[in-house]
């Protein structure tokens, strides 16, 4: 599907597509290694947003005038792009949300109020981001349900036997990440979904860290819910997608009330609009949706094959280079990894390393990466995390290694 217009992968050309990579940080050319937190944007997306606000803006789904109809068409075309991108059976199943966090909150709240009752359980894993822990804790508390946590081993891989053993008939939903934001672990979600389905349990997949790196196919995965953020996949901030199977979305009550999500309103009774609008109360993030559509086009042009190959090369190279630093240990050494490397050096605090790398123009993430329970399991305060996108190159990794060595001279 994506093979249509793939270009030959030229990293220098790719880098020119991202204007931010030309700037400096603390007087040095920036080395941006925090794409797992949020990726940079190609000119195509920036220009699209600009054009939309200059020439294309009106509210969607209500105006009879031409401009509003154009905006509506652009908006709904973007939804169709999303559907095709993730190979969802229907665009009705693709709901625009603010981001992955809202996607999970929507399901936890809406599915939870309908299907989770006292004595039931929700199953997550020990490597989840806070956004895939807290919404479930909230609904479990409200409904009197139990939150179960499947363990992770020392390499940062899910312990599948334990996970499957926790899937009993009390479990009403399994929610887990496709790729760990802290460890880079790629979870075997397809096999996990199959196993859960054998027991009649639906599965939500937090795809925030997967979508920027790999093609996902809803019909192949057979996920019940899959959610991701636009800003991590080269699109605008404030927009994301929740895919949900129609059979669930139809049964779930609306999440927010307001305009757009209604069919008829009287003070006695409101009837709700059809999917996907039932879950899209209020004026949507129109520019965000259109920008997201452009980001999808951009990814398709670069091609996931190229992205995966280049990022894997970077991961291998970075792992080799970093491993040569004395005292450096990588946290998260799963066999199947996305281009994320968390590490620590001796007992040096991640904040100290990060603060010096910042001065050297190198943007990495430090801290617990919103996975405090995982840090507790490893008995560490946090890590330094370098995450790579396809616009990174080997020179970025060389600068990182050089920067770490310089920081260590100061800190040791």
């Amino acid at each position, binding site marked *: 599907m994506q093979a249509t217009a793939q270009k030959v992968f030229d990293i220098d050309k790719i880098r020119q597509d991202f204007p931010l990579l030309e700037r400096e940080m603390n007087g040095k050319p920036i080395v941006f290694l925090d794409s797992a937190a949020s990726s940079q944007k190609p000119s195509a997306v920036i220009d699209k947003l600009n054009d939309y606000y200059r020439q294309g803006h009106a509210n969607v789904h209500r105006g009879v005038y031409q401009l509003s109809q154009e905006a509506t068409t652009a908006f709904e075309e973007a939804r169709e792009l999303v559907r095709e991108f993730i190979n969802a059976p229907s665009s009705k199943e693709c709901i625009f949300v603010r981001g992955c966090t809202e996607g999970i909150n929507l399901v936890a709240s809406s599915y939870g109020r309908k299907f989770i009752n006292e004595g039931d359980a929700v199953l997550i894993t020990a490597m989840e981001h806070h956004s895939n822990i807290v919404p479930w804790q909230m609904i479990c508390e409200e409904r009197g349900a139990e939150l179960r946590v499947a363990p992770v081993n020392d390499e940062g891989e899910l312990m599948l036997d334990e996970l499957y053993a926790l899937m009993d008939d009390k479990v009403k939903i399994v929610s887990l990440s496709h790729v760990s934001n802290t460890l880079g672990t790629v979870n075997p979600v397809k096999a996990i979904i199959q196993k859960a389905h054998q027991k009649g349990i639906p599965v939500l997949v937090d795809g925030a860290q997967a979508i920027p790196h790999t093609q996902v196919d809803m019909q192949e995965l057979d996920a019940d819910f899959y959610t991701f953020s636009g800003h991590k996949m080269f699109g605008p901030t404030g927009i994301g997608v929740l895919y949900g199977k129609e059979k669930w979305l139809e049964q779930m009550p609306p999440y927010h009330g307001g305009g757009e999500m209604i069919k008829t309103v009287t003070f006695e009774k409101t009837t709700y609009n059809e999917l996907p609008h039932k879950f899209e109360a209020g004026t949507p993030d129109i520019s965000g949706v259109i920008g997201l559509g452009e980001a999808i086009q951009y990814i398709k042009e670069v091609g996931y094959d190229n992205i995966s190959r280049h990022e894997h090369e970077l991961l291998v190279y970075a792992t080799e280079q970093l491993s040569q630093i004395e005292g450096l240990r990588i946290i998260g050494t799963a066999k199947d990894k996305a281009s994320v490397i968390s590490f620590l050096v001796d007992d040096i605090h*991640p904040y100290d390393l990060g603060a010096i790398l910042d001065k050297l123009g190198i943007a990495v993430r*430090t801290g617990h990466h919103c996975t405090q329970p995982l840090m507790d399991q490893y008995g560490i*305060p946090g890590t330094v995390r370098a995450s790579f996108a396809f616009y990174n190159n080997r020179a970025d990794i060389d600068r990182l290694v050089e920067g770490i060595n310089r920081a260590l001279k100061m800190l040791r």
Partner: protein
Amino acid sequence: MAEINNIQNEIIDEFAFFGDWMEKYEYIIDLGKSLPLIDEQYKDEDHLIKGCQSQVWLHADEEEGKVKFTADSDAVITKGIIALLIRVLSGQKAEDIAKSDLYFIDKIGLKEHLSPTRSNGLVSMVKQMKMYGLALNAKS
């Protein structure tokens, strides 16, 4: 108050000798490494200020209307900056601490470490130090 500002100006003068950020950071790191900052018994939950990035422990004692601070952090750069804050504020009058304007951090080019977005516990620590000053001043 004059004393607090005198110390701040002293620090600013000292930092003027550093050629670049590396010398500055090396000095801060040395400060962080060399100072025994807090009695172990105070490194508990009650004295902990939790930042996203690093953690800070702060303890205050009162001696004849003056506040003595001791503090610590798990990150050495944070700890070095704490050493400077303690040099400026510890042993000062409660009233002066509450009213102090800590301009030296900006002047010596370390303000990013005292920004709320860093979330290293230092912003909350300074707030807490001033609160102690305010509370002790109200008591006296």
